[in-house]
């Protein structure tokens, strides 16, 4: 297997030396952060396996599909509609952009004062260390932030890139623009794959993506229980893996995990003691393998019970109505569903503030941690409004600005310790 992988990586044009460093770095970190946790659900075994072979079996699957003529479409953002990709018999793969490892590589080209997520994603391509990017036929980017938008222009020099324009307001004109973008995306994917998207295929794809959303919703629902049956780190990992794993398998595995953790809830069993302070994390996405804040919080004695982020509720909270009908109608329904994502790229974005307050109540949290990737200006500025909204509701807030490096782990720990002292009483 290991030699098969090496040969595959070489064929994909991976920089094997750099890639080896990355692959050697990950297992001890995963062991420290994940395998050291006590009382984990058995269903996490699958996700441990997936991370343990992160650039192996899944890439092999995708390559096999590609060899059989299937198109692999790589994405970075929850605005890119998987339904359309799947309806054209193509495979959507959410790319990771969550490690410091690829940041210095990107900094050879991009300005340093760019957010870590952008740098990490670009560095993976520039450094040729991500077999998923290498396997993909097309990267679909979007305009959810100016940094990404401009990075994609540079990325396009290295890989085929298509950009979807996400509007910045939620007016009818903006909604119409987005409907047009989704319809245009349909054409792009049809052309790329050579497959026509029929009403039947689109309905089936919609049901499938909804099933994944339902499975993740089900998992998150168990986290409302006190004591919480699954750690925040484990739940975050499930969401992260859901971005790139085979969708049908993912649904099955998440539901199997839910069967297990629902039993825990029924028996009142928790992964942490019942009095553990409960925290909602809200803000920038945490792409795999970014487990930094969760790890700091949970080793400091908190339980992360919900993520209001693109690697959390924003990924799956709304379903596409499964009403069928002609392709054009379904495309509109899909487009409208995505406009319900309350990304900080929108102005105004009051709905996100409402979401945070609502989630804080639903998940019975003792406090909210606002997570901001450094240089992510939309979330950083919106945090001012988040702070006001939470203060009004009497919900304690800790604002954290950080990146993927661990140089500030001590300072973060100080803030987290003080915050937990504050909310624990």
């Amino acid at each position, binding site marked *: 297997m290991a030699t098969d992988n090496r040969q595959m990586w070489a064929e994909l044009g991976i920089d094997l030396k750099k890639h080896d460093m990355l692959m050697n*770095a*990950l297992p001890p*970190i995963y062991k*420290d*952060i994940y395998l*050291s946790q006590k009382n984990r659900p058995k269903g996490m075994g699958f996700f441990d396996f997936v991370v343990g072979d992160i650039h192996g079996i899944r890439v092999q699957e995708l390559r096999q599909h590609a060899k059989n003529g299937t198109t692999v479409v790589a994405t970075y953002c929850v605005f890119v509609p998987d339904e359309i990709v799947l309806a054209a018999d193509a495979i959507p793969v959410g790319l990771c952009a*969550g*490690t*410091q*490892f690829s940041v210095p590589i990107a900094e050879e080209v991009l300005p340093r004062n760019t957010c870590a997520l952008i740098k990490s994603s670009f560095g993976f391509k520039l450094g040729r260390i991500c077999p998923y990017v290498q396997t993909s036929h097309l990267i679909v980017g979007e305009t959810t932030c100016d940094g990404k938008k401009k990075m994609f222009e540079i990325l396009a020099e290295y890989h085929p890139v298509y950009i979807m324009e996400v509007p910045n307001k939620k007016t009818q004109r903006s909604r119409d623009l987005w409907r047009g973008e989704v319809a245009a995306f349909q054409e792009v994917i049809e052309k790329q794959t050579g497959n026509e998207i029929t009403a039947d295929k689109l309905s089936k794809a919609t049901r499938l993506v909804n099933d994944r959303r339902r499975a993740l919703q089900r998992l998150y629902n168990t986290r409302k229980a006190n004591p919480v049956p699954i750690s925040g780190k484990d739940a975050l990992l499930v969401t992260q893996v859901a971005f790139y794993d085979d969708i049908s398998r993912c649904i099955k595995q998440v539901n199997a995990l839910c069967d297990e953790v629902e039993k825990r809830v029924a028996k009142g069993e928790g992964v942490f003691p019942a009095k553990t302070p409960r925290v909602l994390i809200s803000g920038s996405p945490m792409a795999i*393998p*970014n*487990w*930094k804040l969760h*790890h*700091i919080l949970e*080793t*400091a*004695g908190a339980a992360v019970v919900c993520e209001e982020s693109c690697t959390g509720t924003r990924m799956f909270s709304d379903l596409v109505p499964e009403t069928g009908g002609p392709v054009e109608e379904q495309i509109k329904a899909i487009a409208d569903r995505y406009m319900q994502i309350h990304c900080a790229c929108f102005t105004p974005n009051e709905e996100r503030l409402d979401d945070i307050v609502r989630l804080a109540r639903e998940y019975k949290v003792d406090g909210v941690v606002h997570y901001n990737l*450094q240089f992510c200006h939309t979330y950083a500025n919106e945090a001012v409004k988040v702070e006001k909204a939470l203060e009004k509701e009497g919900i*304690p*807030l800790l604002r954290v*600005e*950080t990146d*993927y*490096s*661990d*140089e*500030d*782990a*001590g*300072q*973060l*720990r*100080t*803030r987290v*310790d*003080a915050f*937990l*002292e*504050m909310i*624990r*009483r």
Partner: protein
Amino acid sequence: MICAGLDVGSRTIVLVTMDGGILDSAILETGVNPLRRCQELLAARSYERLVVTGYGRHLVASAIGGDIVSEIKAYAVGARHLYPDCRTVIDVGGQDSKVTLLSAEGEVLKFEMNDRCAAGSGKFLEVMAKTLEVDIGDLGALALSASKVVQINSLCTVFAESEVVSLISRGVESSAIALALHEAIAARIAGMVRRIGPKERVVFAGGAALDRCLHQLLSEKLGIEITVPPEPQIVGALGAALMAKSSASSQQTSQRDSVPKVV
């Protein structure tokens, strides 16, 4: 019962021992081996309970025992002990600046902390003192003697240093440069204080509170009187010692304190 509070900061280690009142206090430079420094400090004293705070709290407490508490809580407890009417604590230490708002009962309501870098911390002043070739202890007095006003725009320690170098090369007196540096850092800290919505009494502690110029500028900028305790550096260790005394301290500490590692 003799209780000890240890504040393991990035620049100094402070030990306070208490029985009824303060028995003893000691301040040492942190150096490169804070653990050994702490062991030496503690070896010379007898105590029954220990609470450790400061940047090195996890390292030290896991090696030599004792409960841990964050600096924010420790400074709050220490400041309230000295001034029971204290509602706002400004702590400017070596690496961090923190502003904490307290309830009338002394509970931590919220806090602000500088992000990531040394800008707005004692380290900033220390680096600049070195560039101006004055002792850190004399920097405040030098600034107060300035007869001319210049401006430093950058708060980044690295960029500010190059601004200082260019001011020096233009022949600007070091007193004026020292004042400009104090203005810059005071503006930054005052911003944090305003963001939190300060309530009086405001207590300014930590090593940088020894700087008279910074104290004066902060008072001016905020338009409120700011109290600096006689020994501002020991407030965190005092708070830790007080927490060692109170039985509640054991419940306030983290149970799981492995040092986090990230990708």
